[in-house]
């Protein structure tokens, strides 16, 4: 394998590593077979593993996720693709009502070890029904683990952890990051679920970010470093389990918090993080908790309008400057 791979390649590589390890890992989804998926995130899997391990489905999101659930309950580890995360709405019953509750409702009799992977997020001009960041839908549902990697190495390490997890995992692959490159991790690379990464250290302010907003935060940190300001960037990696220990520890150092999330402000995960900080971290704070999130509108098509709506590096920088001036 090359030393440097793209986020897109990391997805299929991450799946392939697990499929080689464990024959019970089986993929299903729309156009994921010979075509390699609409985002080419399953490229090569069909050629390597064949039609009994990589299944093309009809346009039937309920059947895709529902069947994955039934298979997961009976000895298979399915990796189901929902092409765009917006389409999770078409099978939401399985993700909200069935999969996350099965183990609990049966008093622990049944586990559902599956991964639902999906292309998430905006910035590509795909319009309001193909651009959403919908991790927050899942956050409102106890019983799902939620993963959203920001770089190729984490894609592979978290994919391994997700597929090996005996609990159901929603795995969000960000469309805007697909072409980004990073180091290819060694064999057996595994990133445990629920451990945030300190993507950059700094002493003046903490930025909590996820997936696409990690590069924005890092770019903003770079810019502020030129002014001698130390920005600590935390890449949450997962929303559940949520690594608040790392966030609160950083805040102990910086006393200032900015949360950067791509989803709309209303109902966003930043609210959950901010609420925990405003409670358990109250005494650490020297300034208001700030959030840069998307505006509370559907995502517009035109890129000029989309930029008005979603977080940008400029917005992160501006928010950091205001926060530091407090």
């Amino acid at each position, binding site marked *: 394998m090359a030393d440097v791979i793209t986020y897109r390649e990391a997805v299929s590589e991450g799946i392939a590593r697990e499929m080689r390890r464990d024959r019970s890992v*089986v993929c299903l989804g729309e156009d994921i077979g010979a075509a390699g998926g609409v985002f080419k995130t399953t490229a090569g899997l069909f050629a390597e593993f064949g039609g*009994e391990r990589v*299944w093309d*489905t*009809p346009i*039937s*999101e*309920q*059947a895709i*996720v*529902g*069947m*994955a*659930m*039934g*298979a*997961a*309950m*009976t*000895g*298979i580890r*399915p990796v189901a693709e929902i092409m765009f995360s917006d389409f999770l709405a078409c099978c939401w*019953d*399985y993700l909200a*009502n*069935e999969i996350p509750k*099965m*183990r*609990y*409702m*049966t*008093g*622990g*009799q*049944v*586990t559902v*070890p599956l991964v639902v992977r999906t292309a998430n997020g905006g910035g590509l001009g795909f319009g309001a029904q193909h651009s959403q960041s919908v991790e927050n839908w899942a956050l409102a549902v*106890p*019983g799902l683990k939620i993963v959203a990697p920001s770089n190729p190495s984490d894609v592979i390490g978290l994919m391994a952890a997700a597929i090996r*997890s*005996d*609990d159901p995992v929603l795995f969000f692959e960000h469309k805007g990051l697909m072409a980004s490159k990073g180091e290819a991790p060694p064999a057996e690379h595994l990133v445990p679920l*629920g451990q945030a990464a300190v993507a950059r250290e700094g002493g003046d302010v903490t930025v909590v970010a996820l997936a696409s907003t990690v590069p924005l935060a890092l770019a903003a940190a770079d810019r502020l470093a030129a002014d001698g300001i130390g920005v600590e960037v935390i890449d949450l990696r997962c929303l*559940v*389990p*949520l*690594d*608040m*220990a*790392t966030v609160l520890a950083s805040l102990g150092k910086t006393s200032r918090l900015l949360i950067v999330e791509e989803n709309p402000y209303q109902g966003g995960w930043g609210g959950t993080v901010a609420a*925990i900080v405003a409670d358990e971290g109250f005494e650490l704070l020297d300034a208001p908790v700030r959030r840069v999130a998307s505006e509370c509108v559907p995502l517009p098509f035109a890129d000029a309008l989309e930029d008005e709506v979603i977080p940008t590096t400029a917005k992160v920088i501006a928010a950091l400057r205001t926060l530091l001036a407090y």
Partner: protein
Amino acid sequence: MTADLGVSIAPDVLLGLFEQMAVIRGTEKAAHDLFLAGLVKGTTHLAAGHEAVAVGASAALRPDDYVFATYRGHHHAMARGATPAECLGELMSKGTGLNKAKGGSMHLTKASASMLGSYAIVGAHLPIAAGAAWSARLRGTGQVAVAFFGDGATNIGAFHEALNLAAVWSLPVLFICENNLYMEYTPIGSVTAVEHPAADRAPAYRLPSQVIDGNDVVVVAQTVGLAAERARAGEGPTVIEAMTYRHFGHSRTDPATYRPDGELDEWLTRDPLDVARARLAGLGVPAEDVDAAARRAAATVADAVEAAKAAPGPDPAEAFRDVWQDGGAAWRT
């Protein structure tokens, strides 16, 4: 409707099925009474009248075949081996309940007997059952999966998606509709243009289908047996529509006043227990043997009621167990 399919059932086997049905009937009646006595909370959907579908189908399946039922699923849980005491314990919120009092009447599950759950969202379990069938095929186990569902479930999207994909992939899954003529309070005929909401849709997926007498345990067993054989042979799913009737209202709060006069009485003349009795008589089984089975069933139920009543409530800590596979519920550090 199909008549006898010529697969014979031995008299003693049939007597066993009769006793199973009697146990289920008795347990449903007990659940009803316990509800009125305030000992069962929430809601229940009793299956009295549907026993032959569950018992007949189970008799025709392998012990490791998977069963998926609806919120009206007491009969399926018991037909697959859940004891009346476990079921009543669950309904009565006892720590001994089948699901540790965390599921309730609508979610009875006995995974150790391959009874993989009762599902309270109409139609949701059809794709899940298809997935279990897919899994069986991937693992090469020869298992079959069976989804039982109501007539009302045939109009929800998941039904369509499951039947199509199961057909295209030729999965070993049986779709068994318990057509009891009603959804909650509305007749299925008023919301479906075809006469048989399940069977008449099968051709849309190029699937075979049968409409059968769901109150005759022998017919059910024979039909399901043949369909399971087909599925195991790799010939794909079958849709079976079993005509039956619920003796109680939809759920405990429903007096079922929407039924036309006389309809219940007419169906009571075809009570699955009486149909089985008649079959037993036809096979020469003495009435006293049947009565003895009925008495054994009544005793089983009475014991179960006592056991469930005597059982302790759930450990409060159970509320925080088993969200995750590690047994816990931690979602953050």
